[in-house]
């Protein structure tokens, strides 16, 4: 089943990663922006309910819904995700627990099997549950794994933006992409668009748009994310509802016992 790999809750982390006040003035300013944003936009926890719609080139739609609970931030976060729709994946759960210096421990609960399964780190090129996102697209952007440089300013949806070119370093593992262009809103330093270039591509192969930016519990977050596969012509739209940050988490929420608890979180 496709839903055996589900780190979808990291998406909002991508959104808040790149927000910080800064006054870039030199060529290495791109790195400075990324460093500052990472330091500033930490949240203790995050909860939301997500819905995604995948629309194929011929207009056919697929929908999925889930709930996500994160405690901690970035490489130190615990995460629980529970799918709520469609019926075929309802109840499927994913738990990720951090381990210092290593990939997180990951488990999947499949109601049809009535048991949890430890799973390995995923192939970054795999499609995420049949959407236009690949697993690499869901990873938090670790700028240390990229060579970055600042390009000329552009405007996205009427907002002036910094544009940063990020090329993955070879030692950071194989990437799907030759380069990424990051568009940061100048007023918030918030990521509002990312163009993804496949190897040898002059035009982006995919484009991620982050829209409907709101302030929730003192943190900026985009409530709508759209990934367009410009080659296949398909689109995936993710909407986040009931967002909450820095809330206390019930004891035992991020445990294997809770993962296998049917009808629970």
């Amino acid at each position, binding site marked *: *089943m*496709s839903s*055996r*790999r589900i780190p979808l809750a990291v998406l909002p982390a991508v959104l808040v990663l790149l927000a910080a006040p800064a006054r870039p003035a030199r060529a290495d300013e791109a790195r400075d922006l990324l460093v500052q944003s990472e330091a500033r936009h930490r949240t203790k926890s995050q909860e939301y309910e997500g819905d995604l719609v995948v629309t*194929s080139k011929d207009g056919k739609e*697929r*929908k*999925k819904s889930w709930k996500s609970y994160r405690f901690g931030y970035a490489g130190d976060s615990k995460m629980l995700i529970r799918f709520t*729709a*469609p*019926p*075929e994946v*309802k109840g499927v759960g994913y738990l990720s627990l951090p*381990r210092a210096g290593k990939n997180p*421990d990951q488990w999947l609960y499949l109601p049809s*099997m*009535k*048991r949890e*399964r*430890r*799973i*390995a*780190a*995923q*192939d970054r*090129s*795999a*499609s995420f*549950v*049949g959407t236009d996102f690949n697993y690499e697209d869901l990873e938090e952007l670790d700028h240390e794994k990229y060579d970055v440089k600042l390009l000329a300013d552009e405007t996205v949806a009427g907002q002036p933006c910094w544009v940063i070119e990020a090329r993955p370093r070879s030692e950071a593992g194989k990437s799907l992409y030759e380069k990424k262009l990051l568009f940061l809103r100048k007023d918030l330093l918030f990521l509002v668009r990312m163009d993804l270039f496949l190897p040898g591509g002059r035009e982006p192969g995919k484009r991620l748009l982050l829209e409907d930016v709101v302030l929730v519990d003192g943190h900026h977050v985009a409530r709508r994310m759209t990934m367009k596969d410009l080659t296949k012509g398909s689109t995936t739209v993710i909407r986040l509802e009931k967002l909450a940050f820095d809330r206390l988490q*019930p*004891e*035992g929420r991020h*445990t*294997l*016992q*809770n993962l*296998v*608890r*049917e*009808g*629970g979180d």
Partner: protein
Amino acid sequence: MLALACPAAAYAQTWSGFVEAKGFAYAERSLPREPWLVGWGTAQLTFEERLAPSLRLAASARAEGWSAGERDVFLDLADRDLRRAPFSLREAWLSWSVAPTVDVEAGRFQLGWGKTDGYSPADAFLPRDLTDPFADEKLPLWGLRARGQTGALRFDGVFVPLGTPWRVPVSSPRFAPVDATVAGLPVVLADGENDLPRAGWGALRLLATFGDWDVGAWGRTGIRPAPLLTVRPDEAYLDGDAVVLPADRRYAREEAGGVELSRVTGSWILRAEGAALFSTDAGLGDALIWTVGAERAFGDGTLLLTLAANARGTPVDPLLLFDRALLPAFVAVWQRTERWGSWRAVWTQGLRHGDGLAKVELSWSATDALALSLGVDVPYGSRYGPFGARPDLKRARAGVRWSF
């Protein structure tokens, strides 16, 4: 009282289920009375409610109809009848979280134990419904269960006061063939005495995670759910185009213990299990079962490999012991998700007689709720093996399923 104590309206209440129609087309048959085509319809409804933050309820009922085959009772709440009933209860449990990481459940539920895929000795004894021998459908249990976690250690204790027996295949050359003929006529088994278990079993499983390693140990004691068959050749009789051989069923006591291991190694998950099973019943004997398995994802596909065997001989043909019939065997599964749906290929190779089963399943998702499926099951090889013994089960199948 419960309703007064719990503000139920404030918590989630959901209904879900599916309606499915499927058809089978068989490539062979030994008797003219066995149909070439069989239709099967199923409707299942599930209700779940969170009565309070620490109290959850679920119930699931199934209605079925099929064009060929035997049935005895209209409703079988315990699944203890020899034949599958048109109406049955799949789940009916109440779960109470007595602590943040401790739950107590009572009612009817299904278990899924073990780590290895394809075959797990921790899971293999659990009752199956072999009405369709290639479907690997588990039967739910009536019982009590306590599960919990403290730190890295988890426990799972189950008590089943009254055992649910395996539902063995219907007696026919297609589903339960006998490798013998009398005067040129095929021999079929018929239901004899069925001494249903009057007791159940209890089991405890402990699990822990240490870095890349998941380890576990389990033990159980009680009545083994799979029957032991005793045929009565002296009471054989002629029934039209076949010789009928009555077979009695009885249930033996068995004690068992096992260990489980799982390790993450890069992109692979390696799994292994070992189990020792003891019975003083001469018709069952002891067993030492081991399995090793590996799993890895390749893009949108997943490969699962499992090798399983019993290091001890069996006092009777393993085919007659049901949960050990497959051993030794190698199982390979390749499953892949596509934009249009998914497909799956399963190859099970018996290593005792060289027989096996090749299955391919394809599911096309017309919408999020509607899926069409196609598949083939091809048993092959020696007639002495669990798969080769059923050449009449070569078949193609097609189905449509609407979920809500």
